[in-house]
């Protein structure tokens, strides 16, 4: 469903070349719940950006649903995101000038779908915000904002959902509820979920965990124990 092949991302910083990701290769099946973990600076967010087509790699490719997104231009990638990808961010990223329901409607309307508002209201009710449809982001708590963001991410029934530290700005109870919500939506809709986090407790809930360190995949483990450690585990991972 999603595969990364030899993904490398380098930045030129003055005379230095900084390699943030080095030769990352893995594949994700439809309906999987995958967590990418690693300490700060390990390249998690960079990897997420590349997988979702928000950025282009220096080398390597990303295939989403059989399409090589690294070969697409910026606008085609945007269309692909609109059609198949959902996002949940650490800082929610709701558009402050729009109400909850309007935020959820945006991806639907960008695709030109009919009944956008009915669909949006429906999804919001499913995340438990049926009574908050017309509130602006500033009138909602952090947990509620994240639920709006999740509703927005699922509103166009994405084939894959990327979540970047979705609980990072929330207390642990609210965070747990958000993860449960993600899990249930993953089960019900069959969407693939790729979660980036440095919270190991959260990562443990995923059925598969990829660990990154210094831009390299150091392990790739399934919940049932099978998997391959691709490199020796580094000590700082435990600290993360």
């Amino acid at each position: 469903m999603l595969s990364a092949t030899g993904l490398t991302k380098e930045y030129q910083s003055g005379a230095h070349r900084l390699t943030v990701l080095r030769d990352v290769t893995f594949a994700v099946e439809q309906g999987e719940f995958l967590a990418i973990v690693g300490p700060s600076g390990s390249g998690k967010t960079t990897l997420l950006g590349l997988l979702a087509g928000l950025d282009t790699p220096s080398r390597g490719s990303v295939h989403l649903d059989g399409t090589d997104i690294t070969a697409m231009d910026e606008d085609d990638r945007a269309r692909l995101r609109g059609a198949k990808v959902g996002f949940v961010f650490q800082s929610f990223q709701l558009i402050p000038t729009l109400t909850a329901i309007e935020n959820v409607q945006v991806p639907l309307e960008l695709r030109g779908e009919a009944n956008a508002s009915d669909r949006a209201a429906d999804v919001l009710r499913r995340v438990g915000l049926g009574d908050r449809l017309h509130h602006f982001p500033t009138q909602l708590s952090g947990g509620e904002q994240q639920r709006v963001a999740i509703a927005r991410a699922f509103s166009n029934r994405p084939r894959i959902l990327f979540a970047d530290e979705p609980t990072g700005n929330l207390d642990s109870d609210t965070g747990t509820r958000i993860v449960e919500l993600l899990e249930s939506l993953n089960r019900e809709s069959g969407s693939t979920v790729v979660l980036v986090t440095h919270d190991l407790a959260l990562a443990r809930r995923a059925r598969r965990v990829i660990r990154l360190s210094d831009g390299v995949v150091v392990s790739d483990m399934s919940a049932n124990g099978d998997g391959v450690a691709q490199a020796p585990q580094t000590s700082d991972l435990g600290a993360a």
Partner: protein
Amino acid sequence: MSETKRLQRLMAIAWRESRTARRRLLLYMSSISLGVSALVAIDSFTDNVSRSVREQSRALLGGDVSLSARDRYSAKATTLLDSLATAGVGVTHVTTFASMGLVPRSGLTRLVQVRAVSARYPFYGEITTEPAGAWARLQSGRHAIVDPSLLVSLDAQLGDTLMLGTARFVILATLRSVPGDLGVSAAIGPRIYIPDAYLGETGLLVFGSRAEYETLLKMPPSLSPARFAGRFNVRFSTDTPRVRLRTVAENEFNLTQSIDQLGDFLGIVGLVALLLGGIGVASGVHAFVMRKIDTVAVLRCLGATSGQVLFIYVLQALAMGLVGALAGAVLGVGFQFALPWALKDFLPVDVNVTLAPMAIGLGLGIGVWVALIFSLRPLLSLRRISPLQTLRRESDADVMRRAQRDSAAMVVSFAIVASVLVIALTRAGTVERAISYAAAIAGAIGLLWIAAVLLSRAAKQFTRPAWPFVLRQGVANLYRPGNQTRAVILSLGFGVFLMSTLYQVQRNLLNQLDLKLEQSRANVVFFDVQEDQAQAVDSLIRAAGHRVVQEAPIVPMRIAAINGRSVSQIMADADNAAKAARARGERLTGARRGPSSWALRREFRSTFRGEQMPSEKLVSGKWFAANDRTPQISLERELASELHVALGDTITWNVQGVRIPTVVTSTREVTWARFEPNFFVVFSPGTIEKAPKQYAILAHVPTSAAIAALQRSVVLRYPNVSSLDLSLIQRTISNVIGKVTSAIRFMAIVSLAFGIPVLFSAVAATRRERLREGVLLKTLGATRRQVGRIMLAEYALLGALGSLTGVVLSVGGAWLLMKFVFETSFTPAIAPVLLVGAAMTALAIAIGLATGREVFRQTPMAALREA
């Protein structure tokens, strides 16, 4: 899903997303409102005036055709007119001249414009009076209808007797309106209408008197004015004296053409205002774009293409631009009602103010286009905002810097330049003028721009670590990334520049007039003094104990030949040369064009004397030698060049039928503004002494009461002699200038107002950075007072530097205008202009602090949460 549906959805997003930004976007877009209002007002106004001229064109001329001459018509022309009258053409006359009016009851006198009219004058249009209907009774006796100002200055009332020369008239009524007369003309000399049957009784039109003879014709239905002109124009215009023929259509063309020129000139001011507004829009929208980076990044994550993002925000800008332009159009219509009032003394017609849909449509169209094209430049950067922003925030400046390297931005910049040219073309009519207008505008804006860049560099260069923190911080704001120094200097500087240039020019012109009048040795002049009266008037002045300063004999004459070739030969040659050149497709200029026909055919009023006057300076040749009896002349420099004559050339004069040959031995520069009789041609003594002549006598009389007494005693004895009091000229000049000044002041205030919304936009553009910075400073322990003082330092500097730039440029501009347009010296009036600068600085500070008030209000916590 159809494309229309898709567009509708995008429009819905655009509408919702603009929710909180509408007011701010509208504020930026209001920058163009004043420019649009200026264009709409000016175009509507010229449209109204032109239409009024067309509607009232026959009333403005008074007939279908007007004939006019500077002298009594020749016998031939008179016969022709008589035969026309018998053939069914309506004929009526008006003779206009200056004379002294005296009211015996009050004993007061004043120089007036007498208009002696015959029955049926005018054929079209109505001269209205107070009490109404008096015009119809004018011809029924020795009646006069006068300007209301005359009653005031002669302390007279209706029913009083008014003496003109030796005739007495009863003042029947005052004038309310005369079609075609400018309101300002009454300020030059009050008008008096009398029946021309009694013109002879006044005894005023004697030898050498200057008068204008005009005849109005009313064509029978079978004869169109154009056909009449075609048939008779040559006959009248080649007659001596020359009779000028004007038809209604020609008169209308001349009037509307000058109105159009005025409109074009004012339109340039409007255009500049609009472009300044465009710059305001660009800087405001730039700020708007900065605020939208996060939202756009999210939209991109959610699948919006760059085209969709651009569409959403262009739509918002377009909608607000339309609202801004509409507000401007409404304001413009308001101005349109004010303009005829502000300019009423300079308009020949009663302006019927009606809405001009073309002008409104054009103003709106240009306004929306300028708003769109100028906002497109910053909006284009939105296309380049990466969705990656949602994961990793870069600084706004970095995002924008990357986004601005774009070929589409180049296309838009080119489109801006092309738009300015095209819009200038709608003003200028010809490509050449459009380019020069656009270049002039670009020059003014470019100079201010360069000044702004230099200032922001200088700020960086000269900041010293030893300066107090708040000052350093304030100065640093002038050159930090994303600073608005350029926009503020541009808007503020331009306003100050326009206003102070107008002020400097006006002040300098006034000063020079005052200076020249003060230098004059005399303060009262008697003119039209006949040869046999000169001695008596002279003794009358001396007997009253006053000093006669100068007695200038005046001899009327025309040029007969130059270097042996007659005027008609010279003119025929020039005509042939011009025709031949046209056939070759050339236009003759300068020396090749031949002498000007104006100079060749005019009547000269010349003098003779042995000595030079203080008001003239020899520029070539030698003044007449005392013992040299050959007939010589000294020419005024401009006239010599118009006639294409040099020292040593001979000019033969026709003096009352006697031919007098002379040699040009010198040329002079004459200060015409001096209160003294000045002459184009001065003859050497002994050349024309025997010719029939009249005199102008200048005297110095100490008090205005003594002047009035002297004028009265002269006019009672010699009614044909007119006199003019210097203080009257001064009053007249300051009266006229006062009217011009208030019209200019109106324009200046409007032009200054143009800058204010731009200033607002420019200041609001950096609000976000300011807020972050202010809050950060507060978090680090700065008090509100310190934050306030940093802002004060910044805006005080911006205001002062902007105003100073405007003032410096205006001194340069005014100097150029005085030197090349008015050809006179220039003294800068610094103090009052600096006062304007100080006021503008205060305004900049007020706007800056008002826009930044959120920085004071915001608590550090709230802002950190937002960031």
